[in-house]
C-alpha cells in the first residue's frame, strides 16, 4: 500500500500493527484502540512515536484525553461509502485540537482524495491518505490537487434567476 501526502507519494516511518498479535519492541507503530487500552503503559514506555487507528464506529471522543500521546491518528474507511471518518477528522482538528498527522486508511478511492485532503480553512481534514493498490500510483498525485468548488470564493452562483453563469 502506498501513502500520499499533500499530493505526493510519501514514505511512512510507522508500522501499522493494529491487526497484529505482537507489538514490536522498538520503532513507531500504529495500534488499534483495543491495543491502546490493553497496553497503554507499555506503549508509552517504548519511547517511540505512537499512532492510533480508529475504526469508523470509534468516534474520536473515545481518545480525546489521550490525543497528546499520538503523532498519528489513522481513520479507517471500511467501505469507501462509509463517510463517518470525514466528520471525525474535522472534529479531531477543530474540536480536539489535534495537530499531528491524520491519515485516511482503508477503502479510500481516488475520487475521494480531494475530500480527504481538502485544505480550505473551515474544511481541514486528513493530511495523508494510505491507499490500496486499486489505482495505479501515478494517478494519485494528480487527484489530490482537488476539485474547485464553483460558487464559492466570490464566484457567482451556478444556478440563478437571470444572466449567464
Amino acid at each position, binding site marked *: 500500500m502506498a501513502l500520499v501526502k499533500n499530493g505526493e507519494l510519501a514514505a511512512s516511518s510507522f508500522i501499522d500493527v493494529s491487526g497484529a498479535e505482537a507489538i514490536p519492541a522498538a520503532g513507531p507503530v500504529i495500534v488499534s484502540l483495543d491495543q491502546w487500552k490493553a497496553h497503554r503503559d507499555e506503549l508509552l514506555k517504548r519511547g517511540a512515536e505512537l499512532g492510533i487507528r480508529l475504526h469508523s464506529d470509534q*468516534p474520536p471522543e473515545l481518545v480525546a484525553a489521550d490525543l497528546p500521546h499520538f503523532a498519528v491518528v489513522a481513520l479507517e474507511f471500511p467501505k*469507501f*461509502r*462509509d*463517510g*463517518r471518518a*470525514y*466528520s*471525525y477528522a*474535522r472534529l479531531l482538528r*477543530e*474540536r480536539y485540537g489535534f495537530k499531528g498527522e491524520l491519515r485516511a486508511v482503508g477503502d479510500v478511492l481516488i475520487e*475521494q482524495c*480531494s*475530500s*480527504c485532503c*481538502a485544505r480550505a*480553512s*473551515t*474544511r481541514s*481534514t486528513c493530511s495523508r491518505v494510505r491507499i490500496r493498490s486499486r489505482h495505479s500510483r501515478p494517478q494519485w498525485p494528480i487527484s489530490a490537487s482537488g*476539485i474547485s*468548488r*464553483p*460558487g*464559492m470564493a466570490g464566484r*457567482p*452562483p*451556478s*444556478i*440563478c*434567476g*437571470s*444572466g*449567464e*453563469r
Partner: protein
Amino acid sequence: MSRSRAIQSSGNCVRNITADQYAGRAKDELADPRVYCELLRQYSFLHPEFSYLPRKFKIAVTGSPNDRAAVAVHDIGLRMHKNEQGQLGFEVLVGGGLGRTPYIAHTIRKWLAPEDLLAYVESILRVYNMQGRRDNIHKARIKIIVNQMGIDKYRELVDKDFEFTKNGALKVPDDEVERINAYFAPPQYETLDDQTQAIAKIRSGDRAFDRWMRGNVIEHKVPGYAIVNLSLKAPGKTPGDITADKMDAVADLADQYSFGEIRVTHRQNLVLVDVKQAELYELWHKLVALGLATPNLGLLTDIICCPGLDFCALANARSIPIAQDISHAFTDLDELQKIGQFTINISGCMNACGHHHVGHIGILGVDKRGEEFFQLTLGGSSDQNASLGDRLGPGLPQAEVPAAIRKIVDTYLVVRQQQERFLDTYRRVGIEPFKAAVYGEESQAA
C-alpha cells in the same frame, strides 16, 4: 443557456435543494426561498465532510406559510416565519420522508436566524453522518435515526454541536445573501394597476374563462401581474406529459407573455409566473387551443402519477391507466368544482414517487401473486398541516378503483359541512363512513 447540472443529483450526499413553484412571485410569500436554497447549495456542493452520508439527503425551503414545497416530507424542511419580535427566520423540521417508511418531519427548532442557517444545518448533517445507520440501506435515511432515538435526543445532539458551529466561519454574511439575491432579481415589470374590475367583467360573460381563472391563476405579489398554471391533466391524458411541439408552443407563449420563463412543478404542471393581468384572456384563448387550459388545478383530476409499470423497472403496478380511468370518471367541470380542493396521488410501488402517502386520496400499486392491486389511503397532505394517509382497506383490482373513488366522493358530499374540503371532512369524521362506502357489503359479510 442551461441552468441545469447533474452534480449531486445522485449519491449519498445533499441533493438538489428545492422550493415551491411560485417562489419569488407569490403574494403570500415572506421572502424568496431560492436565495436560501442557493446559499445551501453553495455550502453543500462537493462538501468534503458530507459527500458520503449514510444515505441521500433532501432539503426543501418554503417562503410562504402556505407550504407548496412539501417541506414536512423532506430530510430537512425549512419554513420561513417571523418570531415574536417580528424577525424573519426559519422553523426547522427534520426527519420527514416518504418511500417504504413514511414519516412527517419533527420540528427540531422553532425559529432559527437566517445567519445561523448553515451552521445549524451543518450540525444536523454532522450528527446524521456520525449517528445514522449504515447497516441497512433501507434504514439509513435520517428519518429512521431521528425516530429511533427520538426528536428530543436528536435535538440535544444537534444543539451540542451547534454550540461549536454557530459562531464560526459559517455565520452567513448579509452581503453574501444580498449578492445571491441579486441573481434572483425580478424581471423589469411595468408599473400597472390590478385589473380586478375588467377581469371580473370578462369572467361574468365567459363561464369557461371564469372556471380557469378560479383555479389555475394565482395572485402575484406585483400589481397588474398574475401567476398562470398550465394544467397537464387534460381528461384521459397521462398526467404531466406534454409533446415536444406543445412544449415549443409553450416556450413561445412564455417569451411573449412571461419574460421567457417556464417552471415545472412537482405536481406535474407548468407555470408561467409573470403574466400581465390585462393579457390573461388573450393567453387563455391560446392555451385553450393548445389543450393546456383544463381548469382543474388543485381539483380531483389534478392527479400526481408516477410512470408506473408502463415505464419503470421498479414498479409493481401500472399507475397511468388508473389516473386515466379516474379522469374519465370525473369529466363534469361543474362537479369537479363542487367537489373542491382534492389531491389524488398515485404510485406504482412503495418507493412512493407519486407521493401517495400525502394525497388526500393515495393510491399504491401492489403486486399480489402476479396480479396488480391498488391500495387506497385517505387523509394525506403535504402542506403546512402535513399528514400521512390512513389505509382504507384491502387492495382493489384496477377495474374497481374509479368506482371506489366515486363512492368516497359521494360519501364526502353527503357528510361535508358547508364548503369544507375533503381533507377537513375526513379529519372530522374519520375513516369509517368511507370504509363502509367502499367495502360495505364485504365488511358486513365478514
